[in-house]
Structures are given as structure tokens and as C-alpha cells.
């Protein structure tokens, strides 16, 4: 709740202030096989916002995604989507019409053609006749897959399949689009495609909620929640999150990084330098001036210097003490994937 109170004001589109939130979660908890996958999640997403959950695999993203997609029910806490409680079974069918879901694993039927996939999807959402035909035509054109419409989905490349997935999820005109790790497994071109699609949705006022472990994708969100160990460790716009680092991130390499870090800490205790991946890392304002002095003071001890603006990776590191990209071999990781492959327990 603290994070929520501190950041709820920034970066929210002004027009949406005071409007009913698109998604509102309070105190969401979920366990899987006796292990807490989510321990008390609170967040609000304003209508029209692109909101991201950034965190390592096993941090709870998949579990949270399944709850939002109505495939799993939180053990504690509530989730409201456009004001309706996900726990209210009677309203669920109506609520699902407002949702578009793009899973990480594809949901296309690879034996069917692209067009057949879209038509089946339309029928499942109660669309038919001329309306359905028009929507299918528009979706195929919009995502640049009209020329492949008659081909079986299995013949499409990964990037085109992802486009077809998104076309499928948007066919019925959902107000909220959920995307689970949308850029995983995509080449750079397909990632650019995806980001253009998200920009288009922003203009149309569709609310987008996505999960990712790529900081580049996090950077494109209006607001972000950093998720680790089943908790939100920070929340805000990418810019606001990075501001808290204060200054630049400096990385030094040298023959003996451990000794270098000890000497630095002795001379400049406020830096709290740390050794990561064989390099010394610290944060410092106006680092370029400081580094020039440092290299002169410690001749021969420093071989290479990197000074960079902080990234979301640095924010994550500061908040959790762990790197975002570090694949954690914890059990939670395995159990989440298991959960994703199966159904809600």
C-alpha cells in the first residue's frame, strides 16, 4: 500500500484522473503447492494506460496474469476489472467480453488457416455474419497478414504468429488487453511491430496490461510495477523510477575487482560499491568528473570505465539486490511454469 500511495499521482493520464480504474487489485495472495506465488499485491491501472509488470521469471508475473485472465482465483484479496469483481461468477461471462488475452504460449490452432482461426474466435465471442466478416477483414489488414490469411497457422514465422495472436485477441474489440511476455522469442523487427501496435492501442484508448522481463519493454509502458518474490517492490513511471537512482551508474573493470571495491569503499564510503559479474558497480552524481579523478588516483587498478544513465535494471538491482536478467533457479520458477502449462489448481 505504501508504494501505491507514493506513486498513484504521477504519470497517470490527466483525463483519466477520477475515472473508474480499469483494473484495481487489493491484497491479492496466491499459493501454488504450498509456496506463496503472490503475497499481497495492490495496484490500480487507469483506463487507456499501458501498465507493465516487470520482474524476473518466478517473480509471480505468470500467476498474476492468470488471475487477471480469469483462469485462476486469488486466495485472498480482490481484483476488479472495470468495476466488476473477478470473484463474481455470474458477471464473469460479460466481463470476459471486455478482455482480450494474448498468452505467452500461442493459442492459435496450427492446423487451421489464419482466417479460420479468427472466424472461430469470433464465434466464441458471439460475433457472426457481416459484422464478423468485416472485423476479420480489418484485423487481417491491420496486422499485415491478409496475404497469408488462407495459409495454415503452422506455416507462419514466429513474428507473424504473434501478430495473428494479437489480431485474434483484439477481434471482438476488448477494452482491456492482457499480454503475457509479448516480446519473448521475437526478433528485433517483430518487437518493433509489437511496439507500434501498442502505440496504436494507446491512441484508441484500449487499456493494456503486460508482463515482461525485458527492461526495454518496461521502458515503453506508461507505468510499471516491479515484481519480485510475489511482491511489488516499486511502482511508477519508468522516468520516476529511474530518478530515484540519483545520477549515473558507473561500472569499473580491473585486474582485481574485489580489492578495488574495498579501496573505493574505504575512500568513499557513500558510494557503497559492489562487485557484480567481475566488475565494480556504484551510483554517483556527475560521474564523468568523478571518474576522471578516480582513474588518476588509482593508476593501473582500473582497465575500463562505463558511465551510463540508470536503467530499470539498475532500479531493480537497487530494490532487490538482484539482477533482473539473472535466471533464478528457485522452485518458484518451476512451479510457475508448471502452473502456466496446466490449469488453475
Amino acid at each position, binding site marked *: 500500500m505504501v508504494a501505491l500511495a507514493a506513486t498513484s499521482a504521477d504519470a497517470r493520464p490527466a483525463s483519466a484522473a477520477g475515472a473508474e480504474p480499469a483494473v484495481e487489485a487489493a491484497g491479492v495472495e496466491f499459493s501454488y503447492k504450498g509456496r506463496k506465488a503472490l503475497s499481497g499485491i495492490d495496484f490500480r491501472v487507469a483506463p487507456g494506460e499501458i501498465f507493465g509488470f516487470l520482474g524476473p521469471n518466478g517473480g509471480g508475473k505468470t500467476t498474476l496474469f492468470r488471475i487477471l*485472465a480469469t483462469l*485462476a482465483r486469488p486466495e485472498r484479496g480482490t481484483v476488479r476489472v472495470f468495476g466488476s469483481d473477478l470473484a463474481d461468477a455470474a458477471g464473469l461471462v460479460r466481463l470476459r467480453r471486455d478482455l482480450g488475452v494474448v498468452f505467452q504460449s*500461442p493459442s492459435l490452432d496450427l492446423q487451421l488457416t489464419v482466417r479460420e482461426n479468427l472466424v*472461430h474466435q469470433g464465434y466464441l465471442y458471439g460475433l*457472426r455474419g457481416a459484422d464478423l466478416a468485416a472485423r476479420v477483414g480489418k484485423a487481417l489488414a491491420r496486422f499485415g497478414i491478409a496475404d497469408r490469411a488462407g495459409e495454415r497457422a503452422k506455416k507462419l514465422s514466429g513474428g507473424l504468429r504473434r501478430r495473428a495472436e494479437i489480431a485474434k485477441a483484439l477481434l471482438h474489440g476488448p477494452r482491456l488487453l492482457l499480454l503475457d511476455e509479448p516480446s519473448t522469442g521475437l526478433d528485433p523487427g517483430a518487437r518493433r511491430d509489437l511496439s507500434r501496435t501498442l502505440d496504436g492501442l494507446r491512441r484508441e484508448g484500449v487499456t493494456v496490461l503486460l508482463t515482461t522481463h525485458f527492461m526495454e519493454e518496461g521502458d515503453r509502458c506508461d507505468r510499471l510495477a516491479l515484481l519480485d518474490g510475489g511482491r511489488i517492490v516499486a511502482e511508477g513511471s519508468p522516468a520516476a523510477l529511474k530518478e530515484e537512482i540519483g545520477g549515473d551508474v558507473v561500472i569499473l573493470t580491473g585486474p582485481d575487482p574485489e580489492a578495488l571495491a574495498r579501496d573505493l569503499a574505504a575512500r568513499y564510503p557513500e558510494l557503497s560499491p559492489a562487485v557484480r559479474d567481475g566488475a565494480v558497480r556504484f551510483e554517483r552524481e556527475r560521474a564523468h568528473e568523478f571518474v576522471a579523478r578516480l582513474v588518476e588516483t588509482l593508476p593501473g587498478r582500473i582497465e575500463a570505465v562505463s558511465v551510463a544513465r540508470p536503467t530499470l535494471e539498475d532500479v531493480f538491482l537497487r530494490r532487490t539486490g538482484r539482477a533482473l536478467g539473472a535466471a533464478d533457479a528457485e522452485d518458484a520458477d518451476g512451479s510457475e511454469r508448471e502452473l502456466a*502449462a496446466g490449469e*488453475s489448481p
Partner: protein
Amino acid sequence: MSPLAVLTLWRRELQRFFRQPSRVAGAAGTPLVFWLFMGSGLSGSFRLPGAAGVSYLQFFFPGTIVLVLLFAAIFSTISVIEDRHEGFLQGVLVAPVSRGAIVAGKVLGGATLAWIQAVVFLALAPLSGIHLTLRSALEAAGVLAILAVSLTAIGFGFAWKVDSVQGFHAVMNVVLLPMWLLSGAFFPLAGAPRWLAALMRIDPLTYGVEALRGVLYAAPVAAAVAITAAVALAAYACDLAVTRGGRVD
């Protein structure tokens, strides 16, 4: 329950089947080989108790049609597991569609495919020495329809609960194939040892085979058809319960 959703899921089962030639060939070939080799091989060696003048090839024919149904039902229920693994099912589960519509679409789709294959096989009846009349053929098609729903529904219930194709193979070997072996398809109830006969009488498939044999030989079948229909309904009801129980609806 949305009829449109049921119809689209049903249609998808048919589209997928006819696009996989290996599935079509496997479904038709295996029972044909079974019937021809086993029936011919056993014909010379065995006399059927209480069925003088009936060759084993002829006796085995209705049982083979039921095997066609069983294989077809098994294949289509394995598609439930594939749908889950390939991700298609999750897309259906988040759609505004009731679980009842998913059961109806998948079970009726699978049953339709099983029924088509069984009816094609039924056309071979004269080769086994069974004389088909229009009436017996239509009645047999009716019995096969009930049995197709029953077997597909039984398979669906297991497939929904089982995570892997390997797990389903275990179910197949422990439950579905013994059901067929004990159904009187392979050897008659008359003449079986008492303990085996008892097992055969509690096997629901026994009554399906009896009904099919009955319509082909113009014997009374009302009780057997009624039991077969009741089994089909019970299996279908179990599917509805299994897909709802303990899951998000």
C-alpha cells in the same frame, strides 16, 4: 450455453481430423487389420459356444466396429490434452463461453468423427457374412451414435484430468482397452468362466456390443439400448462436473 460456441468447437474437430491424413489412415487401418488377421486366424481354430454356423470373422465384426469407435474416441480425447498443451484451450477458457459449451463441442465433435468412421466400417458387414437391410443398417447407425457419445464422453473425462498423453495411455491400457476386451466383442459371454462373466456383466460396454449385435441379427435390444443410453448420459454428466469442479467457471 451459446449454440454458436458449441457449433464452432464441433466444426473445428472435424476440420482438424480431415487435415491430418495420418489420423484418417490410422483410424481406418488398425481395426481393419485386427478384424482381418485376428478374425481369419481364429476362425479356423475356434468353435463358438451357442452360436453354431457363425464364423469367428462374423462374430468378431460387431466387436471390431466398437473397436473403431473406441480408437476414434481415444484419438479425439487425446486432442483435449493436445489443445491444452498447444495453448488453444486456454484461449477458449478465457472466452465468454460456458464450460458446458466446451464439453458439448468437444464431445459431440469427437463422437461425430467416431460415428462416421464406424458407419464406414459398417458398410463392410456383407464381407463378414452379415446381411444388412436398410432397417438394420439404420438401427445400427443409431446404436453407434449413442455408443460414440458414450465412449467419447468417457475418454473426455479422463483426458480433462490427465496432464500428459503418456498419462492418458495408462488410462487407455488400464480402463478403456479392458472395457473393450470384456465387452463380449472378442469372446462371447456364454462359456466364459464365472468370475470373468461377472466382470463382463458390470462392463457398461457389454450392453453396447449386445445392442449392436442385436440390431444386426434382428434380436431384441430394448434393454441393452436403454442401458447404453444411460451410460452415455452418465458419462456426459461426469464431464460437466469434472470441467466445473474446483476450477474457475
